[in-house]
């Protein structure tokens, strides 16, 4: 199962996307420590991990709320997806 990480600049933004995903779309995601490989992108130490199929929905939340994300990445090879 493919997962993605969305890296945020602040813990509040990460929590916001997590909460909207759950409350508005019933999608679960998890706040996790940002992997070392993505450290250069990281603004804070948290990122949001979710199944790849939910990335588009999550990304819409990021964009429509003007949240400053450092990008979305594949969890296996850390390829930048967004």
């Amino acid at each position, binding site marked *: 199962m493919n997962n993605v990480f969305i890296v945020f*600049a*602040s*813990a*509040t*933004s990460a*929590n*916001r996307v*997590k*909460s909207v995903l759950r409350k508005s779309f019933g999608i679960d995601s998890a*706040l*996790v*420590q*940002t992997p070392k490989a993505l450290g250069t992108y990281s*603004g*804070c*130490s*948290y990122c949001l991990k979710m199944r790849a199929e939910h990335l588009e929905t999550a990304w819409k939340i990021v964009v429509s*709320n003007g949240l*400053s994300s450092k990008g979305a990445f594949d969890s296996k090879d850390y390829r930048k997806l967004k």
Partner: protein
Amino acid sequence: MIYLDNAATTWPKPNQVIEAVANSMKYYGANPGRSAHKMAIRTSEKVYECRELIADFFGLSNPANVVFTQNATMALNIAIHGILKAGDHAICTVMDHNSVLRPLFAKSPDVEVSYLGADGEGAISIADLEALIKPNTRLVIMTHVSNVCGTVLPVEAAAELCHNHGILFLLDASQSAGIINIDMQQMKIDLLAAPGHKGLYGPMGMGLLCINHNLDLNPIIQGGTGSYSKELAQPLELPDRLECGTLNLPGICGLAEGIRYINRIGIDTIGEHEAKLTAYLLDGLSHIKDISIIGKKDTLGRTGVVSFTHAKKDCVDISSYLSSNYSIATRSMYHCAYKAHESLGTSDAGTVRVSMGIFNTLSEIKILLYALKNMI
């Protein structure tokens, strides 16, 4: 003890608040937004949950615009110093607390300040407010409820007026949050400052500033946020822009439970309970010789903050008599709002203030009235 000093801070706190404070130290003991171990993440989620709860409570769409502070004074200072710059004009009312008057005074003369007057019952006029507006008026600040006499100010009309003139409106909800319904969007309130420890039944050491839209406030303190760590400039994003250093987690968890407690009982029920006690108190006071009620004499347009004076006795003596003989807690003299006392005609000696909370009962008010009747 009969605690009638709820305008200073509410007491007792609901059991669930006390439990939440204790539990926060057991289960949410890590620094949120900094480290990324399990407890830190869980704590960060808890903090966000509380922001959401507060945002919902005050009709704010973005929980990130809830800024935690140590009290209402800090929230007011962040807003006042963060918005006003040299050349601006600001308006407040004479009914405002020193936590508004003093930061404004500190900004003058760079910032011009006008004081909107009040009548002998603490009421203000919207026409008078409009007359004070100038082309450079940037901010109007108004207390929702007088902490001296409980008069409710027409903040919705004031906010509407400000909105129509493109002026920011900052509400000091210190005496109304948790007692009167407030919807920031509906009421067009740009900023709201509130203590967490009064009508919201959280612990002391908690306050909050809610910001209705994307305003850029100049931060008055800078420091660690756990975000943008490589940058020296304070982040632009809320809440990090205005909230730095380690948060008061026990306070935040307690405040969240305080709000849940209010939501469960219902603000209207709380308001009705306090109004019932206030009506009884006002009626009783009006029949005691030498006592004068300060402010509105009936329950219309007021809350359960009641001030009175005595023709022959000093306020401080009355409060100490009540405390020593009946274990009744009240506050006397000035209530950090001297201009209000000038308007209310109590600038010489202040007032005795009785302020209700959800835990007060009719029999407590009866004992207070009995004590006052039997004062020699």
